[in-house]
């Protein structure tokens, strides 16, 4: 009898051992979101691209895919996790020092190298801000390589906004951050309305600009229409897709969209790639 290789680099189903080093509450209430900072145990963090994901593993519960929420220019790995199923409920019960498994980096990230010299507009809704946060952190950390940065982000209520402290700090530092909430709230100084409406109001210039959108499917759909009305071509627009994922390496077929494996060929797609498929995302 022989053994399957006991080495995460060579057996892609085997997670790296990792430790939770920090937990931050992003959103409280019945649909809570926490950001977990995770450090690999006994080895350096792997290199990755913004937009790539990891399967976070809790033995006894399973694995779930999360996009990496921080830029590769920042330390460790961060994941912002909505409590919604078996794995995420367990993660929300965990504390600093607890051990989890990490498989990654998985999939194709954003082509940030290709975007050098361009203006960057991120358009996010709710927890869909996660991959966009990795992008804007990266762009801020490599400011001289990029043009203007515009961060458009909204949620249902002010309590549902993720990364609030970080975004407030960016506003104070003079970054162009455009926040919105769906309905009026007392003392809310920013836009009230849906994210695509805020985008319509801001009207980013499509010239030399890349727009990246991520959020609930309906928001993405309407945002796409607004971007086209503003003159953005499909090859200037990127998104990341969410699908049920299990293997994370393009084998198990769960995330398959038409002939494409979202976990392997994505989750980042340029819009013209998606509109060329028979099956719509």
């Amino acid at each position, binding site marked *: 009898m022989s*053994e399957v290789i006991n080495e995460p680099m060579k057996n892609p189903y085997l997670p790296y051992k990792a430790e939770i080093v920090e937990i931050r509450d992003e959103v409280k209430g019945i649909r809570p979101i926490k950001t977990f900072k995770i450090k690999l145990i006994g080895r350096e963090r792997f290199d990755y691209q913004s937009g790539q994901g990891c399967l976070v593993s809790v*033995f006894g519960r*399973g694995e779930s895919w999360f996009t990496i929420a921080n830029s590769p220019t920042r330390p460790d790995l961060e994941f912002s996790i909505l409590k919604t199923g078996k794995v995420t409920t367990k993660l929300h019960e965990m504390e600093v020092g607890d*051990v989890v498994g990490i498989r990654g980096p998985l999939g194709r990230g954003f082509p940030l190298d290709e975007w050098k010299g361009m203006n960057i507009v991120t358009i996010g809704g709710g927890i869909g801000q996660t991959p966009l946060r990795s992008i804007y952190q990266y762009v801020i950390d490599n400011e001289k390589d990029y043009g203007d940065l515009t961060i458009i982000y909204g949620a249902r209520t002010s309590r549902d906004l993720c990364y609030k402290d970080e975004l407030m700090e960016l506003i104070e530092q003079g970054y162009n951050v455009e926040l919105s909430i769906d309905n009026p709230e007392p003392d809310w100084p920013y836009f009230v309305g849906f994210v695509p409406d805020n985008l319509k109001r801001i009207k980013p210039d499509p010239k030399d600009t890349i727009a990246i959108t991520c959020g609930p499917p309906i928001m993405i759909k309407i945002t796409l229409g607004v971007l086209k009305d503003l003159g953005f071509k499909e090859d200037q627009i990127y998104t990341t897709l969410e699908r049920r994922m299990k293997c994370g390496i*393009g*084998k*198990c*077929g769960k995330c398959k969209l038409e002939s494409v494996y979202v976990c392997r060929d994505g989750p980042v797609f340029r819009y013209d790639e998606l509109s060329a498929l028979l099956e719509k995302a």
Partner: protein
Amino acid sequence: MKVYSGNFLKDVITRLLEEGYRVYAPVKEGNYHVFRVVKSADETDFDYINTKKSPKEVTFPENEILIKYGEWVEELPEQPDRLAIVGIRPCDVKGIRLMDRVFLEDITDPYYEAKRKNLLIIGYACNQAGDYCFCSSVGIKPYSSEGVDILVTNLNGRQIVEVVSDAGKELAANFELTDASAEDIEAKKELEKKVMESFTRKVDTENLEERMKRAFDSDYWKEVATNCISCGTCTYLCPTCFCFDIFDDGELKGVRIRAWDSCQFPLHTLESSSHNPRPEKWQRLRNRFYDKFYYMLVRKGELYCVGCGRCSAACPVGIDIAEVIDNVPSEVE
């Protein structure tokens, strides 16, 4: 081409068992045949057109432990050193070759690879097409020796042995084989012609990629799906259906398992946000036909159907893959 005077298939099983192989071979159960791990050649029965279930489980088990865990990874499962499948039909050999492309190309799946690289394949040529067979329509010859180590053909009660690979040569060296006569060679050619003529089903694959492309939004798929009960029998029996689920069994100590899954099940794609990309039965049915006859063709350049007809034979509501593909509308309203 060689001739063996005894029953080569059975004798080869005996030899392989002596050498310590884990041998999969056809066993008769009730009124059908199925590949099982056998302990003796006496258990086997080679009087079949094909087995009810495909032999994909040899390299891709229905349930497979990936990791044994406690607080952390404790152990990985041992893999068999020597595996053999005896009596596999050419369509199913093609099935294994198509599975290879899924599991071995791009990122290698080490669990599949461990079994596949140690697998000896003793093929068995068909003398007669089954009621639902249409492999000849998807580019497979029912007497093909492609991908096997040794191919056996039953010729008027005698066994013709074609040694194909080095591993096959090594194994064949243990048997007394005589050269086939010119008459034998001629008779085998006749038999090949006869089997090609025995197909009652043909599928028109002419211009199929284009036809599939145009028919994607057709109501045809809703019509085909009318009686479908999403049972997944088709995907379960299919030699090229590779979808699987991964789950943990045991809260504090247990096993991480992968198990066959089916794109016909609504839970297959259901996301935790409650969004489901294929909520409707007809979308899931369409997905199966498109995956085999379009998506994989785009991705791998090959049809992912080997024409074994198992899904048609077993479908409880009579959905027939050959008929469905043959009738894909070329003009869409």
